[in-house]
């Protein structure tokens, strides 16, 4: 095989960097706006460099009516979604990974098919039901719908996490004196933990980002995206940009934490 030519290298780096800029520049720009003075939004022309940094815009957003309450609701919803999805999804994923039983492929297929149901189908009728049950306009209602949305994802991810742990290991533990349960707890669980944590954090992001169901199912107990989208048309531009940045930042941090597991997670769940 011939060695790589420098022309190829230059083209590769040019393309790679151009695409990286395409991804990163918009994030930089909204960050720039979020940390510029409020009126900078309307200034014309204005610099592309962070020449006048200010927390004024962010402070305005954070102290605006409802922001903190909505943030709190978002966190509660996302945490509840994360925990519930994991409690329900991890055992199912484990079963798909470890056991052969009649209809296993049908179950897998059925889980995939649930992705076909749009949020509108889930949330609009449920809103009616939740009103009757008195659950409407609570974080729990939103979290339940978010769990329904995230559960297929969590099941398939945990299945792939457990599939990646050889069955032999648990069996070896059983020949060395473990019961099936203690073999799972001592061997598979510790090995699966990083993958499960990554799946859990990604579930958190999914819920944190979801807006349709949250906006349908709440009235006063808004989550952050639901709050932002419902006040969008009445709010000034700098409020929207600060809100955009405020929603992006935590998700970015979480993504950074789980980046090692990202491709593993998605790759297998895409099947």
């Amino acid at each position, binding site marked *: 095989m011939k060695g790589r030519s420098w022309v190829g290298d230059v083209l590769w780096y040019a393309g790679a960097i151009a695409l990286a800029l395409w991804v990163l520049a*918009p994030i930089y720009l909204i960050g720039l706006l979020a940390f510029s003075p409020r009126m900078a939004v309307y200034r014309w022309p204005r610099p592309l460099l962070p020449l006048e940094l200010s927390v004024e815009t962010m402070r305005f957003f954070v102290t605006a009516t409802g922001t903190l309450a909505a943030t709190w609701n978002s966190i509660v919803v996302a945490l509840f979604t994360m925990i519930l999805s994991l409690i329900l999804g991890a055992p199912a994923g484990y079963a798909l990974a470890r056991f052969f039983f009649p209809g296993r492929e049908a179950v897998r297929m059925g889980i995939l098919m649930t992705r076909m149901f749009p949020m509108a189908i889930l949330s609009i009728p449920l809103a009616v039901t939740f009103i009757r049950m008195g659950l409407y306009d609570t974080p729990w209602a939103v979290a339940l719908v978010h769990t329904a949305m995230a559960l297929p994802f969590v099941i398939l991810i945990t299945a792939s996490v457990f599939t990646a742990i050889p069955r032999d290991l648990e069996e070896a533990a059983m020949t060395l004196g473990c019961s099936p349960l203690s073999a799972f707890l001592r061997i598979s669980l510790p090995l699966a933990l990083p993958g499960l944590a990554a799946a859990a954090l990604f579930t958190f992001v999914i819920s944190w980002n979801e807006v349709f169901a949250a906006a349908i199912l709440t009235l006063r107990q808004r989550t952050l995206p639901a709050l932002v989208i419902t006040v969008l048309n009445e709010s000034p531009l700098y409020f929207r940009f600060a809100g955009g940045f405020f929603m992006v930042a935590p998700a*970015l941090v979480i*993504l950074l934490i789980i980046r090692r597991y990202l491709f593993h997670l998605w790759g297998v769940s895409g099947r």
Partner: protein
Amino acid sequence: MGNGKAPEWLLPLALLAPAALFLTFFIAIPSVQALQLAFHSSSGSGSLEPFRRMVSDTRFLPALRNTLILIALIIPIQLVLALTMALIAQSRRRGAGFFLYVYAIPLAISELAAGLVWLAIFTERGYLNVILHGLGWIQRPVIFLSYERPLGILLAVVVAEAWRATAIVMVTLVAGLQMILGEYWEAAEVFGANLIQKIRYVVLPLLRPSLQAALIIRTLFAFQTFAVVVALGGGVLPVLASEAYNWYVGAHNPHVAAAYALVILVLSAITTGLYLRLLRVRPEELGR
């Protein structure tokens, strides 16, 4: 493995049951309820009134048309972008891993946030105009997102979605590529294939299972495009999901909203079926 009493399928069943019950409850039951809502009038009697109101609404056809146009524009762009990113990130050159993470960043960004990010660029005093002015190409700001020109909003939505959701396609493709790129790529190289030929005859055919998965997921989500459209266009550009939202939240009419939801579901089901047919992967092609 137990003491020979419980049948072997009992444990997996017990592990699957809670999730299955939950999903049945929160997906099957709402679906049935959606049917009930959509086929009953507000007074409670069974009728086609919600559908009649939906279809006769002046925004229905534009919403349907816009949704389909968005899908037709966004999906091919995402596919090409994602494949390019995936191929770049799978190179053995230094820094490939870094670029892979960078390209995956939009995974964390919501539709709403993406809409707001691109609003900061496309709005009248936004960064696109700032840059164009800086280059000396314009004197006064150009209005991209105007009430009179829904096409401008539509294109902005395409850009924002291509920016945000390409990552999902890319990550799905990366997993499939990892298996292909090693030996097959080199084999094609040994037999003298150039870059385009390698992609055309080796990567794309072998990537079909991943492509199928990525396409299905992306299209299903694209039918639900909502927040990005609201963020960039206010109410100017109707799409199916935003109409469902407006009928429920604005008009307090869950019946018509449910009818819209059913339209989305039916379209989703049809597309999934189409993809499964068109990109059919025969088991023997998987080489397992």
